[in-house]
């Protein structure tokens, strides 16, 4: 189930991207599954097709899905395999400013670990 909040300050395409990633993390979607077509998902949500297209592109650039001609958006991310070097590096680049921000606000390593575990638990718990 995807939930988006149109009036939120977070753009819809980011919300959608995050929701798809969370669905994969929870195991609702797994490697090889196909996402609905851009038109179908946009119609279901009543949002612009460009919005859905943009979030699919984000997922492609994160190597989570792949656009296969005639099949659509197929999930290629595999949480049973080890993460590739490049992915790990790009993830660490994206995490860096956030970790820095946490440090700036005086969060120590233990608290940071706690925070990450809490977030992980939260992702898996959402029904």
């Amino acid at each position, binding site marked *: 189930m*995807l*939930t988006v909040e*149109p009036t939120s300050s977070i753009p819809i395409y980011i919300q959608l991207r995050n929701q798809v990633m969370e669905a994969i993390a929870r195991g609702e979607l797994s490697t090889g599954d196909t996402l*609905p077509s851009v038109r179908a998902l946009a*119609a279901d949500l009543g949002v612009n097709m460009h919005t859905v297209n943009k979030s699919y592109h984000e997922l492609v650039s994160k190597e989570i899905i792949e656009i296969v001609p005639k099949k659509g958006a197929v999930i290629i991310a595999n949480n049973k395999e080890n993460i590739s070097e490049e992915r790990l590096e790009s993830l660490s680049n994206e995490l860096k400013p956030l970790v820095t921000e946490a440090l700036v606000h005086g969060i120590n390593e233990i608290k940071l670990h706690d925070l990450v575990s809490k977030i992980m638990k939260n992702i898996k718990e959402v029904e």
Partner: protein
Amino acid sequence: MEFTILFITILFISLIQIAAPFLVKRTVVFGVAIPYEQTNHPKVKQFKRRYAISTCFIALIVLLRFFILKQGSITETKLVLSGVVLPFVLILASLSLYFYFHYKTTKVKKSQHWFEGVKQVRVADLSVRLKDEMLPSVVHFIPVILTISIVGLTIHVFDQLPNQVPTHWGPNGQPDDFTTKSWMTVLNLPIMLFVIQIMFFGINAATKNSGIKLSATNINSAKRRQLNLRKYSSWFLLVVNILMTMLFSFMQLNLLYENLVSNSMLWITPLIFFILILGGSLILAIKVGSADSDLEGKVIIEETNQIEDVDEDQNWKGGLIYFNPNDPSVFVEKRFGIGFTLNFANPRGYFIIFLPIVIILLMSFTM
């Protein structure tokens, strides 16, 4: 006979009009979106009751009027004419009532501050399309085979046709208007039929691509309603397509071979047509109207929801006309009544619906 058919039609329209507020989604009252937990609000229930009673009253008057007309000394033509006009009187009256209660509901919604300060969301189920049981659009090409055979047959016997071909038949099934034979006049019916069949294919295909709108507050019921609507309306569309094909084929055969189809057949085909359409609409209304409506009868959770569906009133003009340029859907579920309505902001809809209608109208006028 004409009286019975028209009487049943008016009765049927009356029942659908009276039942409409109870068959539509609970969260939309007279075209106005309301929060899920307010569906049992006393004002809401009162409005629905008042609408039903008033419509029922008007329907009784209309039916009585029609019955009295029949008793009096009135020509059959006049009786049929009033039988055609009276349903419109009924629809116009219930539409006025609809607008009155639409306005009243809007006022209550405003004064009660519904939807204010609540998180409004849209939801989608990524796997819902696997459960979609709509017929594939290509089924609408099966009747096209018959159209092609009819065209072939017409071309084959063209030389043997008389110079004056019938173009209009009276109520008794006898031709009462003739035109000089030409390719255009002889192929008029099959071409019209072909345009209709293509239109039905287009409607089915566009519905398939249209959104399956779910409700965050009541996901399962909303899903059942949407899937039923899609499934049964696609079956209904196919039945109508087959009936149209039969009717047009009979008419064409009658044009080609004057005495091939007996008069009783010509008379009985529209009757079967009528019964199947009425039965089909009834099944559709029950199957769709029993999910996620007042008829579902499930007790509503009393606690206040933390989330609500997005209040889409601004996309619905008068609660009847959907105009949302962002939504790629061509067809969406009606807010008042059972079935689909066009997204008037999507040009594809005009192409699918109005283009074929214009072609058919042009063809019937130039004939």
